[in-house]
């Protein structure tokens, strides 16, 4: 009787799907190669074309400036990083919770619409107000960044939850899943890849907002303030070094989220691939 069952009859055509794993090493080599060429161009082109160092500073000079201004940069790093971390924690935690509720409760749909409209507002105009209300320190920076990153996290999380296949939900219900189990074992994991892409989006915006706030008015230091200071001093090399530092910060944040996204999307054909705003 089980003889029929032991061989999956009539099905010798298994779809060949790449198993989880690293991408081929040739791709990695290509990527590194492209980066190396770009860096080389950065170093050589300004010298070869005689571009004034006020416009484009060769890579080596930017790095030398980093050595020269190392202490100032280090001192500026913490206010920026701590503000980013604080704002990220708030936007991610509160944003995902709110987005999850908005997405799973039809009665709260209007909140999503409201946030959608609000998203069109250029929040930069609010920073001067915030700095007056809260004072131009860390706190106003963090509040501004939260405002900036919150909405895309909410909207993406809500869309992710709403996009979950209703049949998954129904079939889990037929198996006796409680409300809580439906949330934690179906809705949340099913929407996780989309939620994470929202975190990436929000994360990018938080970083932008903190730097912009520091450039605009903050007196609490930070990378934005430092960049503005070097710019005023016409120290192009130091400006470029600061830009490199900020880029590295952005890369670290984005790539760790990308890795989380890949993990959450395991077993799924859809690979969510959002480019963080910048």
């Amino acid at each position, binding site marked *: 009787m089980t003889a029929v069952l032991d061989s999956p009859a*009539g*099905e010798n055509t298994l779809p060949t799907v790449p198993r989880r794993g690293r991408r081929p090493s040739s791709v990695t080599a290509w990527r590194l190669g492209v980066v190396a060429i770009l860096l080389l161009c950065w170093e050589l082109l300004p010298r070869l074309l005689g571009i004034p160092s006020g416009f484009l500073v060769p890579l080596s000079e930017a790095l030398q400036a980093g050595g020269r201004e190392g202490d100032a940069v280090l001192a500026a790093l913490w206010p920026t990083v701590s503000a980013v971390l604080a704002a990220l924690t708030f936007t991610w935690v509160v944003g995902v919770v709110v987005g999850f509720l908005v997405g799973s409760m039809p009665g709260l749909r209007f909140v999503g619409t409201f946030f959608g409209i609000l998203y069109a507002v250029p929040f930069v105009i609010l920073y001067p107000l915030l700095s007056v209300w809260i004072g131009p320190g860390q706190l106003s920076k963090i509040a501004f960044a939260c405002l900036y990153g919150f909405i895309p996290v909410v909207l993406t999380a809500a869309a992710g939850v709403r996009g979950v296949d209703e049949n998954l939900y129904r079939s889990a219900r037929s198996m006796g899943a409680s409300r809580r189990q439906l949330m934690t074992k179906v809705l949340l994991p099913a929407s996780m890849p989309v939620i994470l892409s929202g975190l990436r989006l929000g994360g990018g915006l938080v970083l932008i907002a903190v730097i912009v706030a520091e450039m605009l008015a903050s007196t609490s230091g930070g990378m934005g303030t430092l960049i503005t200071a070097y710019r005023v001093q016409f120290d192009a090399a130091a400006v470029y070094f600061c830009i490199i530092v900020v880029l590295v910060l952005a890369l670290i944040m984005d790539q760790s989220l990308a890795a989380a996204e890949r993990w959450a999307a395991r077993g799924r054909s859809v690979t969510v691939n959002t480019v963080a705003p910048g």
Partner: protein
Amino acid sequence: MSGNAAMETKSTSVGTIEVSGVSHDYQTTKGKVAALEDISFSAPAGKFISLVGPSGCGKSSLLMVLAGLMTPTRGQVRLDGRVTSGPQPDQVAVAFQDACLLPWRSSLDNVSFPLELRGVSRSEREEQGRQALAKVGLSGFADRYPRELSGGMRQRVAVARALIQRPSVLLMDEPFGALDEQTRMDMGEELLSLWDEIRNTVIFVTHNLTEAVYLSDEVIVMAAGPGRIIERVTVDLPRPRAIEITETEEFLHLRNRIWRLIRSH
């Protein structure tokens, strides 16, 4: 794990279904549409019953009502004499047309999901899950994700997941509808040999008449607009049935009779 063991655990539930006066209306922009109108029938325990009919006849809606996933506008469903509301995971399992596997879980974790929902320990889940996978011929595929399986294999996982609930009633909504003809008949044959061990009540929705006659003890023929039962056809072909039975005169006679019934409405 034998069918007998499964039977012992459900002595109080035998899987008799009584549907009485079930109607369901949908509200659309053009007014009320009757998806189901005054459906009544009873399914004795241990029978394999198919629901057939043209699309729009409400056969899937009726199945959702039986599953407790849809509350009908009027009427009620009794399971072993008790009026039910909502899903009854201890007695009723449902298999859907698209296998409805959770894409981030391996076959094994999908199959044992109903046990996880009941709070069964991990080791127990794993053991039962492997047994259930073996029953549908997928022992070697426990660690595969759904998208790494063919359509037929995904459906086997879904069947194994339904059977792990040890249901006295198994509801199947066009479970092989998305498969090619060859795989569909293979799956039907496998389902029958599994069912021969368990002999629970099965309500099987399909639009494939050959499949319906081949599998069932009784075929309930439905018509659309409003969805209603027009005839109940008893299939008294001997069991166990080999696939060759589909070529016999008796079989074709029954199949054609149902076909004419559907055409005439």
